[in-house]
């Protein structure tokens, strides 16, 4: 098929040209799609924040290290007329049935949960994906949940969260993510309350 001889020089030259052309094309496409991708991610994040916080007119970002886990959590402090009305925490867990689960948890300034939405997960469709709001009303039980009085664990682990039938691992992981957000919130409560807006 190939007309060109398979000499060493030919082979090296061909591979260099193919690789250079490929990297040039990819660099171009990457630059073209960079902005839309960031916009799409930012839009998804903003939507999640507005779903778990009451109405706000200003947002301040902070990040805190959780007591457990390897990555810092991003806190979005929502203000309305200069008053702190809620904190949206982008949290994660590595305990999921398949891969990392990310969620956005909204707390009121005292630590009571306003609402929780998932950001990304790869749980089993039909079972674990019941953590999604539009698949099941399971995660509605977090609305108004007060982790200072109740335990953020599923029932089989001695907590106060209803289990998902046939997806205990997912439910447990989701609780772990939310608990990570709460523990970090609790630990940094003073600095969150006293954050001065820039």
């Amino acid at each position, binding site marked *: 098929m190939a*007309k060109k001889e398979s000499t060493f020089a030919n*082979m090296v030259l061909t*591979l260099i040209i193919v690789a250079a052309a490929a990297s040039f094309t990819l660099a171009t496409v990457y630059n073209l799609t960079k902005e839309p991708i960031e916009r799409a991610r930012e839009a998804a994040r903003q939507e999640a924040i507005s779903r778990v916080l009451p109405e706000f007119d200003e947002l301040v970002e902070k990040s805190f290290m959780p007591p457990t886990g390897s990555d810092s959590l991003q806190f979005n402090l929502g203000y309305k007329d200069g008053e702190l009305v809620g904190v949206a925490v982008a949290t994660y867990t590595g305990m999921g049935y398949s891969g990392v689960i990310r969620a956005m948890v909204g707390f009121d300034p005292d630590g009571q949960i306003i609402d929780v939405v998932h950001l990304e997960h790869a749980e089993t469709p*039909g*079972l674990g994906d019941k953590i999604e709001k539009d698949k099941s009303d399971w995660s509605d039980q977090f609305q108004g949940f007060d982790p200072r009085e109740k335990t953020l664990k599923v029932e089989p682990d001695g907590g106060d969260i209803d289990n998902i039938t046939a997806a205990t691992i997912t439910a447990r992981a989701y609780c772990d993510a939310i608990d990570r957000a709460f523990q970090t919130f609790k630990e940094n409560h003073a600095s969150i309350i006293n954050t001065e807006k820039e």
Partner: protein
Amino acid sequence: MGQLQNFTKGFVKDNPVFVLLLGLCPALGVTTSAFNGLGMGMATTFVLVSSNIVVSLIKNFIPSKVRIPSFIVVIASFVTITELVMEAYMPALFESLGLFIPLIVVNCLVMGRAEAFASKNNTFSSIVDGLGMGLGFAFALTLLGGLREVLGTGEIFGLSLYAGDGMLVFVLAPGAFIGLGYLVALNNIVKKKLY
């Protein structure tokens, strides 16, 4: 072989999934719903057609001993382009397929068509071959995804067909193998009748 047969062979006679049994990793992995199957099929079709075009164009300049690495680089580039474009403009689809898009690189179907067809035929035949094979792949994945969705969750394309939870096994991995087995058998019957 006429272009029409060249195009239609991908659906029943040489269906990539049911007959050639190529690209089974995505075929089993993403087909939890008909929509996912269709999306994956379309993404693969795009990669297949694009890589077939490029491979058929550059085939005369590639020494045969380095053709496989060259083809892989071409395929991988198109897969990355697909991934970036999908994430930028179709975030919802990307969210459900994201994990499997990079796996198109190692989909034997794409490499197989580049090596077995595009590197020996002209550009036009290669486009037709890529379209036929790609759409045949999409057809198979949509069928398998639809079967699993109907039996496993009682829905099709998100529309509820009957009340209840369905047979959960069809949503899980074993259901993919069971479903594929029956579809392969069915395809063999159809194939015998047609050819």
